[in-house]
């Protein structure tokens, strides 16, 4: 009785956490994957593993844990799929288009992110969403700080080009 009550409390606590974090996690997942379907899966995986580890997370920051799981799961996913990944000049059809400015803006963001390499997206996520320093990003990804610097430089240049291009499209 007591144990089932505790389990119910744990589950309720987790559900509240998941609902509260869903948007934040989805944004990070979109930046990591540039693919709404994959981002959805990544959020689901991160939350599932966070719940599985919930007992061990007492006193920890579960949101930070979930984002860490997500970053790692995305690396695993990329490693698994890279043989199948096809580079193309054509940006995939993101979603049905309409005239809404929001959709156009979202579309522009995803198109910009698609142009980045998986490593560039990981660095962008950590540097600009998580506000990590170069050293923190390097430590988290297990790569040299110099690599973080050059990848950031490259990613920023690409994103700026995309931003300016989409601004031009909107202007015309």
């Amino acid at each position: 009785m007591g144990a089932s009550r505790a389990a119910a409390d744990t589950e309720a606590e987790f559900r509240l956490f998941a609902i509260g974090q869903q948007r934040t996690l989805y944004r990070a997942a979109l930046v990591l994957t540039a693919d709404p379907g994959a981002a959805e899966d990544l959020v689901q995986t991160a939350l599932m593993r966070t719940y599985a580890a919930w007992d061990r997370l007492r006193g920890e920051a579960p949101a930070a844990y979930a984002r860490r799981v997500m970053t790692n799961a995305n690396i695993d996913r990329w490693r698994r799929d890279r043989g199948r990944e096809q580079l193309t000049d054509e940006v995939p059809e993101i979603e049905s288009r309409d005239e809404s400015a929001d959709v156009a803006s979202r579309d522009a963001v995803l198109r910009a992110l698609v142009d980045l390499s998986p490593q560039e997206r990981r660095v962008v996520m950590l540097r600009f969403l998580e506000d990590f320093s170069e050293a923190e990003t390097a430590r988290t990804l297990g790569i040299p700080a110099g690599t973080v610097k050059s990848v950031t430089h490259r990613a920023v240049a690409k994103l700026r080009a995309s931003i300016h291009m989409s601004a031009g499209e909107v202007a015309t």
Partner: protein
Amino acid sequence: MNDPSDCSDVKSFVQEFDLGPVPFLDLDEVVRRGGRQRQVRRAERWAAVAAAAALVAGVVVGVAHVSGRSTTHQPAASISPTPTPTPTPSPSTGGQRLLTARSATISATSVHVKELLGVGLSLDVIVTANGAQGTLLGQGKTSVFLSVGDQIYIKGPVSMPPFLPDSQVAAAHGKWILVTSIGSLFDVHTLYRLGWSFTPYGIPDPTLGSTRDIDEIPTIGLVTQQNFRLYVGVNPPYRPYLVETTPYPTYATYTDWNAPTSPLPPPPSPNDVYVPVLGP
């Protein structure tokens, strides 16, 4: 140029774009699948405890048997390198080898663990059943690591962003810092926890990989993922000796099993402990 403060346009680009409708999150499925992993984990824990208990019971029975015969003169069988007459069946599958490695860890009295946690961050500790002590090294600096009373503390200049940023190390003013959110450190909390750290969480039984001699000890690799290998002894007591992961520069070595250890100090007094402010 690459300082985020110089990249406000890019920063707002990724931070503020309209997400649109967030996809439906099947929380029931999340809880169901996550819950299943929790149950598997608990069942595995019980299985390891049972295996460890069986191992201990076997030793006790063996000792009792030998002491019962001690009035008669026997050949010095205890120092003979030959196998015992009724050896424990050697583990054959990856899952069995993993279980025996866990049992060997949990039933040991101590082990020396050296672990590379990431770029420029490493841990060098003696782990016992009741805790662990040693050093944490990062960027040329050294902190003292102490696991005692079911808590982990570090004291010194080493930071571990994002879990323990420089600002929090500075705010500690030389007190012990209570570590609450760094999984790799908790893996060396005690021998029991160490026994559960050999495989990534939620991964099914490992497959057998190639053999390799480590310090002249024949071992075999247990492969749980393409990038993760645990090397365990092929002979009793089937201890773990090395964990390697790639491409991340992460490894852990386990040496000096059952060597004498210094007693653990008592937990720091609450006045000498700083609780870091963490989280999003």
